[in-house]
């Protein structure tokens, strides 16, 4: 126990310093060991190779060269990035409209709608994909619906086990990630800004274009970032609804750690994905950073 004296004893100081060191070790040490070092290990792995089922720990660019030489990998890579872009674009339009609509509701309605967005967010990812598979199949309810309203005369297999199925599934599954950041950004715009704009003579449309839209842009950027990064790296959705025609880059990576068992090559493929993700995150950071924010 510390005495009533004003001076700290040597023992107290030692103990304090010990506690402080332990604290720093936990705070900085654990993330370093379990986040930074694994990422670095995995980066190093991408330069090694496998020969006759044995790991060869020698530095080399072989894996990257193989990726660049292989038409099929480059094709799948490009196709996946483009598909992610489509998913992001669709969700940006749908998500912004929905977020705007919800933010204009009041009281309880608004609260319940937001809750209804968060519920699917915390639902098991694969369950949602599984549910989509049921809906999209040849005997699925989407086909039933389209036939019932006369758009189709017989069940179509267009919606399952191809890239369209992956697009639809990812769009649906990632929608809350798009809507919520936009909604939060819209909610943060004080009503007095909208009042001021109208007071100065702006029509509702002008107020939307000149005040609401630019001020909610950081939210849209964040939503688009989540959407793109998650879509481009996903392998569960294509695995479950993509079939053989819906092969994506994420599956290519995943397969290296399963049947192919070529970990270094898989690591290299994911380092390329990591590069894409990091570029998107940095780009989003730059876009969302406002010149006008308090600093």
């Amino acid at each position: 126990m510390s005495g009533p004296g004003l001076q700290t004893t040597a023992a107290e100081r030692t103990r304090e310093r010990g506690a402080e060191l332990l604290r720093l070790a936990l705070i900085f040490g654990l993330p370093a060991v379990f986040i930074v070092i694994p990422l670095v290990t995995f980066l190093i792995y991408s330069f090694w190779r496998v020969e006759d089922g044995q790991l060869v720990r020698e530095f080399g660019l072989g894996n990257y060269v193989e990726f660049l030489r292989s038409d099929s990998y480059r094709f799948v890579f490009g196709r996946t990035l483009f598909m992610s872009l489509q998913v992001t674009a669709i969700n940006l339009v749908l998500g912004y409209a929905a977020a705007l609509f919800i933010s204009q509701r009041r009281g309880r309605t608004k609260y319940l709608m937001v809750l209804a967005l968060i519920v699917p967010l915390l639902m098991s990812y694969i369950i949602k994909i599984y549910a989509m598979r049921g809906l999209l199949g040849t005997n699925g309810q989407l086909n039933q619906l389209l036939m019932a309203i006369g758009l189709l005369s017989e069940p179509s297999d267009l919606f399952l086990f191809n890239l369209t199925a992956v697009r639809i599934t990812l769009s649906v599954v990632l929608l809350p990630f798009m809507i919520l950041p936009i909604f939060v950004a819209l909610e943060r715009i004080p009503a007095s800004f909208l009042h001021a704009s109208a007071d100065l003579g702006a029509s509702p449309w002008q107020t939307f274009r000149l005040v609401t839209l630019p001020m909610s842009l950081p939210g849209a950027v964040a939503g688009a970032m989540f959407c793109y990064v998650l879509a481009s790296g996903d392998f569960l959705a294509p695995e479950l609804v993509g079939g053989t025609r819906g092969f994506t880059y994420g599956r290519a990576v995943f397969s290296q750690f399963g049947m192919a068992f070529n970990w270094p090559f898989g690591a290299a493929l994911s380092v390329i994905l990591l590069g894409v993700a990091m570029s998107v995150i940095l780009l989003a950071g730059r876009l969302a950073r406002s010149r006008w924010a308090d600093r």
Partner: protein
Amino acid sequence: MTAETKSGRLVLHGVSKHYGTTRVLDGIDLSVESGEFLTILGPSGSGKTTILRMIGGFTEPTSGSILFDEVDVTDVPIHRRPFNTVFQDYALFPHMTVVQNVGYGLRVRGLRRREIETRAHEVLALVALEGLEQRYPAQLSGGQKQRVALARALICEPRLILLDEPLAALDAELRRRMQQFLKSLQRRVDITFIYVTHDQEEAIGMSDRICVINHGVIEQVGPPLEVYYRPRSGFVATFFGDNNLINGRVVERTEPGIWRLETGLGPITCSDDLLSGYEEGAPVTLAVRPEAIGLRAVVGAGTEAGEADNALRGTVNRVEFSGPISEVTVQVGEQTLLAKMTSTVSALPVQPGDAVRVTWNSGDGAIIAGDAEHHYRPDEEST
């Protein structure tokens, strides 16, 4: 401009605002002339901001109408009203520079960029903000933001500018400077200003007329001097600084121009111009400002007549020195009266326990109809 042919008068006609059973405003009748500086003054929660918001179009009245130039504008949407507002928190768009903020009103009217910039520079010069055009609001001081908000409202050349406690966020010194600035600016641009505040000094210093409002009802409208010296309600009498309220009854005219009142303190004389329109026997309240009251020590037992119209005997309760003025409370009969006297270095004018004569002239003070009971207490304001 088309203003020459039109009156530019704003009229509120029986305007009320109810939220459920809560009456925020009740039957407001108010007329504001073109070019006038009118202050709506009242404590927090009195409904003064609601009036402003209804003129601006942000809140719809439950009943009543608002007319401008004899046209009913009650249902005209915000962006079509020729009024502009300076918001309490300024509401400067954070993602626009100063010049973009100021030019906003012209931009949404489809003016060309060159013209917007020229006009924006002119208005910024008017509020002495040249050189800050490319700053963002976050990089401005409170006073600068205030002037940008003002410039942004001015550039639209509105017929009316609504100011919602625009100086509340500024420190005392800056507030004084901005008061003078606002007043002189208003004279130069010749636009009607409707200014909402809870600060009495601000209202007295700047306004052509003051509209005092309390509990959603207008208590009195008039020039600052009138509202201060001729209050028509107990609230107004006590809202502008201290006042002594003496309840009584009109008795009779004793001599030409002088009336006698019967009060709890005994008979009091009161001059004709205060009492016009009252009948004998009517209950009234006399409000006498503490600075109109004189105190003199009682030397002998006799009365010294002729020095003041009213002279009451009393005993000093308490003397409080506060700089140039000493506040003295005197017990007169059942009532306590407050007097304010200039102090001197050598001595305070009176001591507690002194027997004194309390005097004032029959022409000082104001008469309020009935027994005025509602005294304004500053602590009500915090609710």
